[in-house]
């Protein structure tokens, strides 16, 4: 169902953006880390839809 799909996407994206953006865990996410995570999630979704559209044109 859709809810499970969204939760799986949140789970996977969090792992990807955590690895890309977060260093030593501090007492809060600093501004650079927070921005990086938000941009990482947005750009990952942009990248996926770019890839999907381009793949569909090829077929």
């Amino acid at each position, binding site marked *: 169902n859709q809810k499970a799909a969204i939760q799986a996407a949140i789970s996977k994206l969090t792992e990807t953006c955590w690895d890309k953006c977060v260093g030593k865990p501090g007492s809060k996410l600093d501004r650079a880390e*927070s921005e990086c*995570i938000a941009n990482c999630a947005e750009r990952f979704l942009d990248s996926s839809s770019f890839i999907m559209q381009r793949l569909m044109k090829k077929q």
Partner: protein
Amino acid sequence: FQELVQNISEKCFLKCITKPGSSLTSSEQTCLAKCMDRYLDAMGIVSKTLIERSS
């Protein structure tokens, strides 16, 4: 819930327990606690982003 525990455990174990010793030290526990809180923060940002985009 199980999957969340699993993901946080893996990510934070790698960051916080670099040389596993004979018990969890207090500094390792502090690191795990912070790491878990930051992971939940990160997940919150990701969720917000995904929900804004899908609406």
